[in-house]
């Protein structure tokens, strides 16, 4: 494991990066360190957020300095991680991979060196976990797919992806929540809404949640898109 890097992130933040490559280990360290910084109550810290392999510590330059925050972070890094005791949950989410809903499945499968059928099987068999939430509200980054799914983002950005689209790059999947362009490839469609602004709990996922995808036909998906609620036919199970 590399030494964590401590880097500037704007005039009011530092970024602690645990690795330059995504791994389950680096992700677990980032999630645990985020909790540790949040619990430490460091003077002047305004916000702590984690991504896949890093943690951003935001601070108020009026109340503290970059040097003081860096020093606090260094001492927290030298402590042992607490055990992850958070309750885990499993989402089972229907997804359609047919021609109406998966325009780039064949292309992505080819880049991963497998047939479309094998690609679908690998995605549905994958033991996926919410490794980060971000880009857009509530949007989960799901990892990890097998190593041969380490495919690059495309050079050109795709516009106008439907919400609930399943997209892939660099060994991960995202359930798309944003109205924004992306370089990830569109390989499936769900009727799941990751963000529900009017609900009491606006964010469906928490980091650490487990996710299984279950393939359904395009016509089933059309029905779910038209008639189901924000869960889009998905079920939630709390694991021990």
């Amino acid at each position, binding site marked *: 494991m590399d030494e964590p890097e401590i880097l500037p992130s704007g005039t009011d933040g530092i970024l602690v990066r645990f690795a330059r*490559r995504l791994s389950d280990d680096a992700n677990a360290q980032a999630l645990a360190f985020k909790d540790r910084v949040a619990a430490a109550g460091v003077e002047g810290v305004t916000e702590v957020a984690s991504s896949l*392999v890093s943690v951003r510590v935001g601070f108020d*330059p009026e109340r503290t300095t970059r040097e003081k925050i860096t020093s606090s972070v260094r001492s927290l890094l030298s402590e042992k991680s607490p055990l992850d005791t958070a309750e885990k949950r499993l989402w089972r989410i229907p997804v359609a991979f047919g021609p109406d809903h998966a325009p780039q499945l064949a292309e992505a499968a080819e880049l991963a060196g497998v047939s479309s059928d094998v690609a679908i099987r690998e995605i549905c068999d994958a033991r996926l976990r919410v490794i980060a939430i971000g880009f857009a509200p509530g949007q989960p980054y799901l990892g990890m797919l097998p190593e041969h799914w380490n495919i690059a983002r*495309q*050079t050109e950005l795709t516009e106008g992806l439907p919400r609930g689209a399943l997209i892939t790059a660099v060994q991960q999947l995202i359930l798309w929540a944003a109205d924004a362009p992306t*370089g990830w490839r569109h390989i499936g469609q769900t009727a799941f809404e990751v963000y529900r*602004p009017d609900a009491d709990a606006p964010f469906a996922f928490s980091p650490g949640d487990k996710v299984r995808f279950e393939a359904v036909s395009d016509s089933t998906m059309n029905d779910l898109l038209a008639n189901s609620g924000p869960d889009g036919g998905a079920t939630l199970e709390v694991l021990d």
Partner: protein
Amino acid sequence: MPNLSIIDAGPGLTVQDLGRPGWKACGLSTGGAADRLALFEAAALLGTSADAAVIEMMGYGGNFRADDDTRFVVTGAEMAASLGGEAVLPNTVYVLPAGEMLTIRGAKKGVYGYLAVAGGIQTEPVMDSRATHLTAAIGRRLQGGDVLPIGADQSKVAPFTHLQTEDRFSGGVIRVMAGPQTDFFARATIEQFANTDFLRSQRGNRQGVRLSYEGDAFAVDGGLNLVSDLIVPGDIQIAGSGVPYILLAECQTIGGYPRIGSVIPEDLPRIAQATTGTHFRFRFIDIADADATAISDTVLLRRLSAACKPRIRDPHDIADLASYQLISGTTAGDDLEGV
């Protein structure tokens, strides 16, 4: 509570304040005004708090009417505005009398204009903020027929306070600090970036603006396989095709395209307010120098408040001059010539 009625509106009107800090961990960026400085200018002029909600107007305003007298000010982009036949100058306090129409047309300079009223826009907060966040589906664009509650103005007397602001509409040299991914770029690419003339392209919104330039595309070797990482407004993202985007208030919270550096907050309003074709250059500065530019919201408001000055009205600006009794008694009628 008094109301502000929007009689008609351009396509880019939203309620904004300083946004919702603290939700980055859930994927929700802070959002808020594209030009934060304009909110502090409005607060300094009206004597209000900087987090009072205002109407942000992208490119074009609309017609507005209040049902109670209220002081107001238009800050940010220089908008062509008028009230009762008189031009409304930017960064200057006026009274909008109950029932009279305030007309705000197109931006003459800049992109984002702000209409602030003394009591603030009092729409229902969502997660402690009134800011519309379009990509997060919080709030919506304003349209003709909307009626917004506003706080009562306790003063209603305009002292014609004016604030002289520095130009932030003309591009120029923008200061940039290194970010977490600056080292992912080759030294030569960073130098190429610092030596390139950029133009603000046609593409831009509250999320970010795209820049165009001539010359070789910036190399992003391995940039398409990077681990997605946390973003802050001001970050300069180099998309896969080598095209830079500068991210603004409503940016995504995590992104995978590498960021060559970050525009310091003090210079970010100059990016937000740049119209298509505005020229930029970027200059990297040390982290310590960048940090030294960070001043707190309290200090910023205090400085701006101290800079507000009573405006001496030029008689040429006063459309209804003839109705003013300039001297007790009569005037010769020609003593204003040559003023």
